[in-house]
């Protein structure tokens, strides 16, 4: 566990040196800050706008950070050949992959905390105390980001960076369109197409499950049961993709 943590901290430190992550973070803060510009709206509408824009910004820019941090986490070690100095030490390949995952999760967490604090600060500035529904939304966004990081890292154990980036963004988009996919499955009469689409629907990560912001913004409450179920879905999906990552990395020659 200590060795895994050593690799995680090193991954975190190395990623913190990448300018791309800072640029994305700055953009996120600018977008969240810009939501305050809608001062021509009524106070209530303005708050809704701040929440809507901020949730979207935390999720979208968080996803960008998760993808970019995860893509390079393993490939950089291979490209620079620093991996030779790691895998020849008494660490399991699984320690290496999980260490990388926890390192990436740490980056996601720090970025998430910074953007969330900025958003809450903005709400407090507008004299609105964030309620529990806001925290439910943020909690689900965080687990979505962890899942995105896990999937990208897993893809990185057996694909190239270019393929990984295409695949991760494709999954990000498709994962948010699953509700439309479900509708199409229900409408189609072709059994083969419906079967294939249903399989795809089950396999593709359903990122839309984590999206409750549309409801929260308009004041609809979401049950803790739903939040708990979605978090469990996120954790299980992450565990499965990490197992896939371990399987491929165990067999990978460097």
């Amino acid at each position, binding site marked *: 566990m*200590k*060795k895994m943590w*050593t*690799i995680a901290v*090193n991954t975190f*430190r*190395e990623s913190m*040196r990448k300018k791309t992550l800072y640029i994305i973070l700055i953009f996120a803060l600018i977008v969240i800050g810009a939501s305050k510009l809608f001062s021509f709206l009524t106070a209530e509408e303005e708050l809704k706008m701040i929440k809507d824009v901020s949730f979207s910004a935390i999720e979208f820019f968080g996803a960008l950070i998760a993808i970019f941090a995860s893509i390079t986490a393993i490939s950089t070690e291979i490209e*620079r*050949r*620093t991996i*030779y*100095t*790691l*895998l*020849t*030490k*008494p*660490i*399991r390949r699984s320690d290496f992959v999980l260490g990388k995952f926890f390192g990436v999760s740490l980056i996601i967490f720090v970025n998430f905390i910074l953007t969330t604090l900025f958003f809450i600060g903005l709400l407090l500035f507008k004299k609105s105390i964030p309620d529990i529904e806001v925290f439910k939304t943020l909690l689900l966004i965080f687990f979505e980001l962890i899942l995105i990081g896990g999937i990208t890292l897993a893809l990185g154990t057996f694909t190239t960076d270019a393929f990984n980036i295409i695949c991760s963004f494709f999954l990000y988009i498709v994962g948010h369109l699953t509700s439309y996919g479900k509708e199409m499955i229900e409408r189609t009469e072709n059994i083969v197409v419906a079967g294939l689409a249903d399989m795809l629907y089950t396999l593709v990560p359903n990122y839309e499950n984590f999206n409750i912001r549309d409801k929260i913004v308009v004041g609809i409450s979401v049950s803790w049961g739903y939040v708990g179920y979605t978090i469990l879905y996120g954790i299980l999906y992450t565990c499965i993709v990490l197992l896939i990552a371990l399987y491929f990395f165990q*067999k990978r*020659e*460097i």
Partner: protein
Amino acid sequence: MAIIQTDKLTKHYVLGRKKFVVGLENVDLEINEGEIFGILGPNGSGKTTCLKLLLGILFPTSGEARIMGRLPDDIEMKQYVGFLPENPYYYDYLNGPELLLFYARLFSIRPDVAKKRIDELLELVELNNARRLTLRHYSKGMLERIGLAASLINDPKILILDEPTTGLDPIGCRDTRNLLIKLKQQGKTILLSSHFLSEVERVCERIAIFHRGHLLATGTLDALNKQYQAENLEDLFVKTIYAFDNQEAVKTGEPK
């Protein structure tokens, strides 16, 4: 007693359907405890492949490699092994002590022991004056020296060095040579690969000559010189390689 052993170790790099390149072919090696053993060969001869197979970075197509009687994926065995890769590259935002501490943690070395060991090693590789300098400002020779220190952080029983003198100036080469002799006197087993014949000639007790993935000859320099009627290592090197190439040319019917 052999502390490192390979048994018909073979590695084929697959290029496509039924197409492959020989990385290593049926290599039987035995390296005894406490000796300095040199693997020699031209570029692409299979030296690094052999070391990577021993350390579990690559997987053999057939045959097996063992260190201290254990397979390369054995975590406990790696506790006793130090490795210096060819042209090492490290995390360049760390300074020397930070890098060594990072590797010490991977060996689960206690912080107080690690601190003492780091001081000793920096002194040994003469990088004590550059403690605060991050690795991105290191010269090639300094990187090679910090790499050597990193490979010694766990006070290994077995030291595996891939081209340890690449990038070093003559004084650096001499210092490394002296260090290897000193480490041997401490009872360590050293396996090094190199294409610098003079370095190998000066420090190694036994050598192995590789070419195109094949082990052509192995033994003490004197015995091999006698066997191949060679005057020195360079002569021996050329003779064994030419003999193999001629043999292959006859087999394939290609004119030499």
